[in-house]
């Protein structure tokens, strides 16, 4: 089945140690998103790619970076994780076009920072 796959499911890192989360999709969608979700809160958009065009949210910290080497893969890099970065990180995709249609989410990566 076509889907959005995130690895790993759980990630533990140390304070200040760089970490990379990965996302792949078999839907061939134009748009890929990274959301951060903290406990009991709504998902918050960090940034998204429309094809190769990168779009950063104004309030996304510089500590968060992203790469999309091809249509299928997208990475979230956290350069120096702090305790406040512990959260669920969700990758999503959608088609391009005027309305972007449906969002499809991966199962998420739960990040712990020690």
């Amino acid at each position, binding site marked *: 089945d076509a889907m959005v796959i995130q690895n790993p499911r759980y990630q533990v890192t140390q304070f200040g140690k760089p970490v990379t989360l990965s996302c792949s999709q078999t839907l061939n969608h134009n748009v890929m*998103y990274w959301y951060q*979700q903290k406990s009991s809160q709504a998902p*918050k958009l960090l940034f998204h790619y*429309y094809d190769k065009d990168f779009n950063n949210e104004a309030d996304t910290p510089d500590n968060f970076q992203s790469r999309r080497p091809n249509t299928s893969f997208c990475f979230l890099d956290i350069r120096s994780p702090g305790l406040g970065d512990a959260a669920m990180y*969700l990758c999503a995709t959608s088609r391009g076009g005027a*309305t*972007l249609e*449906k969002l499809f*989410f991966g199962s*998420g990566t739960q990040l712990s920072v020690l």
Partner: protein
Amino acid sequence: GIQVEQSPPDLILQEGANSTLRCNFSDSVNNLQWFHQNPWGQLINLFYIPSGTKQNGRLSATTVATERYSLLYISSSQTTDSGVYFCAARDNYGQNFVFGPGTRLSVLP
């Protein structure tokens, strides 16, 4: 940017009961979706419904775009319906989906 509100914030039901969840948005939208987040954190897309009414089994949704709200109906609720229900909207000018704060549903056996 667009603001999205949801009500009620929490809902407890007995199995078999019906419920209505509401989503209000502050501006015209070209995209409105409902999601269910299960206890393991997976977000499942329930409906893509910028306007009109759709049904899928025990679930149905209605969006009245001119009045800026959407409703999600759950009939004959089951314990597996428990979780958090989010609506997400995209306005006619923005690039991004904005999520509401969610409704946490607990269905008791």
